[in-house]
């Protein structure tokens, strides 16, 4: 334990306005939501001397609002709440399933969706679901508010495209046109809990009446610097019947969108093969 709390300064806003104003005045502060990623750095002493912006007290960012056009999830909604929330379970089940695999219960009780996105880990377990649901991220700063699609939020490994002073306040999931004909969420890690994904994927499939593919949306994490939609595979199947051959063809295109690496947790070969196997099993089994 090398964290030295005495050397750190903690700012504790109670409202969204206060949060963005404090952040504007202390742009080098580290925003903290649930703190589950931050605690690892704190423990290693890497945050000694830093200013921390503790967002936990901003109640208005905790709300989950179910609207006609979609669900607006406050950035501070925890994984545990998203896992249990009836409307999310019904309309966006891939997100509930993903939240149930984040860390373990303790992490889910504390970790938040906004914190997860802001941390921008290549292995963020909620990201494939958010990508498939085409989430829109709402950000706020002292200068005002804006929205940007999830795909534009991630700039690289642990990097976001948020401007200085910007905080994530909510994530909006637009309603799907109808219930997908098929869906899948799959996380592959080294153990049953408290594990960082080797590959993690989510997909929905809409079929036309004649059985051809109306729309396929599929995204994977841990196989590129940021979460990726497998656009080449999605496009290749549009309007076609799912057969062993067409599924195999789509599986052959995944490297157009992902570029897994060898690291401490797994190998490029494994990530590629398993990602392909999961996609194949989803499309054709």
């Amino acid at each position, binding site marked *: 334990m090398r964290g030295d709390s005495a050397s750190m300064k903690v700012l504790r806003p109670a409202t969204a306005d206060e949060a963005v104003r404090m952040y504007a005045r202390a742009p080098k502060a580290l925003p903290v939501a649930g703190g589950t990623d931050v605690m*690892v750095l704190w423990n*290693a002493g890497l945050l000694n001397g830093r200013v921390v912006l503790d967002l936990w007290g901003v109640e208005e960012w905790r709300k989950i609002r179910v609207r006609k056009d979609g669900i607006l999830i406050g950035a501070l909604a925890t994984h545990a709440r998203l896992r249990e929330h009836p409307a999310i379970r019904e309309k966006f089940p891939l997100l509930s399933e993903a939240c149930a695999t984040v860390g*373990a219960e303790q992490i889910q009780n504390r970790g938040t969706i906004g914190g997860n996105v802001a941390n921008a880990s290549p292995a963020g377990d909620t990201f494939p679901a958010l990508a498939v649901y085409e989430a829109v991220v709402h950000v706020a700063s002292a200068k005002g508010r804006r929205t940007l699609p999830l795909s534009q939020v991630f700039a690289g490994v642990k990097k976001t495209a948020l401007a200085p002073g910007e905080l994530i306040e909510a994530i909006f999931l637009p309603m799907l046109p109808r219930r997908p004909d098929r869906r899948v969420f799959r996380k592959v890690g080294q153990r*049953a809990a408290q594990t960082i994904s080797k590959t993690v994927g989510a997909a929905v499939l809409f079929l036309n009446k004649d059985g051809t593919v109306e729309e396929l949306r599929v995204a994977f994490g841990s196989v590129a610097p940021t979460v990726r939609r497998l656009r080449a595979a999605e496009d290749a199947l549009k309007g076609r019947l799912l057969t062993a051959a067409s599924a195999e063809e789509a599986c052959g295109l995944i490297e157009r969108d992902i570029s897994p690496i060898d690291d*401490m947790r797994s190998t490029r*070969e494994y990530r590629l093969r398993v990602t392909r196997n999961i996609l194949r099993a989803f499309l054709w089994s």
Partner: protein
Amino acid sequence: MTPAVGTNVLRKEGPEKLTGRALYIDDHKLPGCLFGATLRTTIPYGRLKRLVFDPAFPWKECVVVTAKDIPGKNEVALIEHDQPILVDEIVRHPMEPIALVAHKSRARAYEALKHIQAEYEPLDPVLTMEDSLAVKQAIFPPSNVFKDILIQKGDLESGFTQAEVVVEGEYRVPWQEQAYIENNGMAAWVDKDGTIVVLGSMQCPYYVHKSLAYAFGKPAEKVRVIQATTGGGFGGKEDYPSILAAHAALLAIKAKKPVKIIYDRPEDMAATTKRHPAWIKHRTGVTRHGKLVVQDVEVVMDGGAYMTLSPVVLSRGAIHAAGPYECPNVRIRARAVATNTPPNGAFRGFGAPQTLYAAELHMAKIAHTLGVDPLTLRRINVLKLGSSTATSQVLRESVGAEDVLERCVVKSGYVKRRIECAQHNRDPKSPAWKGVGLSLIYHGSGFTGAGEVMLASQAGVALDKDGRIRVLAASTEIGQGTITMFAQIAADALGLPVGWVDVETPDTSKVPNSGPTVASRTCMIVGELVRRACLDLKNDLATVVKGGVPRSEKELRRAASAVCGKAPSKEYIASYEKPREIVWDDKAYRGDAYGAFGYAAIVVEVEVDKATYEIKVDKVTSVFEIGKAVHPLLAEGQIIGGLAQGLGYSLMEDPVYRNGVMVNAQLTNYILPTSLDTPPMDIEILEKPYSHGPFGAKGLGELPMDVPGPAVAAAVFHATGRWIPELPILPEKILKAFSHDQAKG
């Protein structure tokens, strides 16, 4: 009096631990205590040129110690004296201590380390066993071999002539981290009379005592070592606490204040000992029907940069390398070699899990080659009463190998489940392959060969004037139940209630040297000494109590006063006596390696996902023969914990080393099994009493660590048809085995 042995009495220290009153080393408040931190090397091999202290840093706030401050010899006294307490010139691994800093603030102590620059002249390191054997660089001259063991039985050449089928195999096992809950930590201070006192987390107080007396040039009575409540050890607190204690004491002497050093998890994982990686080759000759004719085994273990306990780990590994089978012709050659990595050390099983993994998986391979069931092969060759082991030890009593095997097979439904899984695997629609694996192991209790004679352990019991009975032993409670078990043994030997017996804190000023808390020896060896000492006390009590045995605590107090006379207490100490029939020839490595062996069998059921190659253990059935379960619930706890640790070793624990240092030295990326990864376990204990163990007891602690690995590998083979000869059995390796086949075919 109802006997306590064999019943589940309450754990002695349970209430203290449950209520948070138990004090671990970091909980002890010592007045004026400073916090110590350690500067470590960053290169695997080279010369330390100098240390540069940042002139801008306020050094007068700190106490700094380097090798120059060591009053005695800059050597850690263990088997060999090759390891320095602090590096003075040659750097031999990347986590060696160079300098120590103490400050009243923990954060400032760590901060100070950043203001010391070590300048090196690097040399080419030796980082693998292969490079070490090839003497790419003589880091332990002349050959880099710490220890070379040769076990021979019968005649190898004639064995291979007789053999009808010869099966070869090569196996590898990695490091493993003990991952005790409490990291290493130690406090030290100097008493008014000049006695150096250390208090901390440890397994072996007298090892620490010996090395401190040596390093500080002090007579034995001027060094006092006290064990604090310890949060687990698994071997990881066997030798390293000697270094840590010396560090804390060096700082305390210079600071003239108590100093505490508590490692955090990354430092503890990267700097302290691991299980020895090993590389094992088997060449085995059998008859067509599966009778073992000849076993030729080669073992190489990576000892790391200093000898530490490697010769002893190697010895146990070598002795167990042929498995629990009888074979007339055996050769086992084992070597421990030096590399520029932190020294590897003791870890539950102590060399045996490595060699038994190879031996047992090789049995599965032989069975497959011959086309017989692995169970049949084991039935043909299993050790029985009167069998002779690889070291030509004739098993005279308490041989439970067949019993555990047969009971485990029945209990698990092994035969039926094998058939069912094979049928399941014919269905191409199923998302997973299923498999069943079996293994059988033995594990010697106590120190090897003449080890117990050399230890010459002493333990005993004291009766205080006020009627308090205290068991006296340096054997430590590290979560495994030592003190509860001692109290049970003492109570039954005395014929008194278990609640009347206390166990003294392991403190070298209060207890005799009962040897280290290792090697599944505490119950069998030290427990027997306690029992014998209690018989002497019982005789004394009989002379002063009507009816021989006190019936109330009041009667005990009266008797104590009579026994003690004017003294505050009377001590009864028993010393180890070698059973006459145990004969060991250390030169030839032949004879009775252990007084007795414990036995275990396991059946593991796994499924392997066809899309992800993830392995899930569905069920474990395991049967143990341990002579006598002194405390059945604690014994079961040891078994469940050990099996879980063994499953971690088999399936996920994978230390990654780069340039000689562990780079995943955190619990976030060194993957241990969680409770969700731990399968249902069906466990049974069998008892075939051993005549020299207390109430028949033999060792238990290490058996469960030995047994899961080879059964998991055999089950994966049964499921997938792929051999994974290298632990851990990761999904990546199974995928590779499949890709390899595709590439070939």
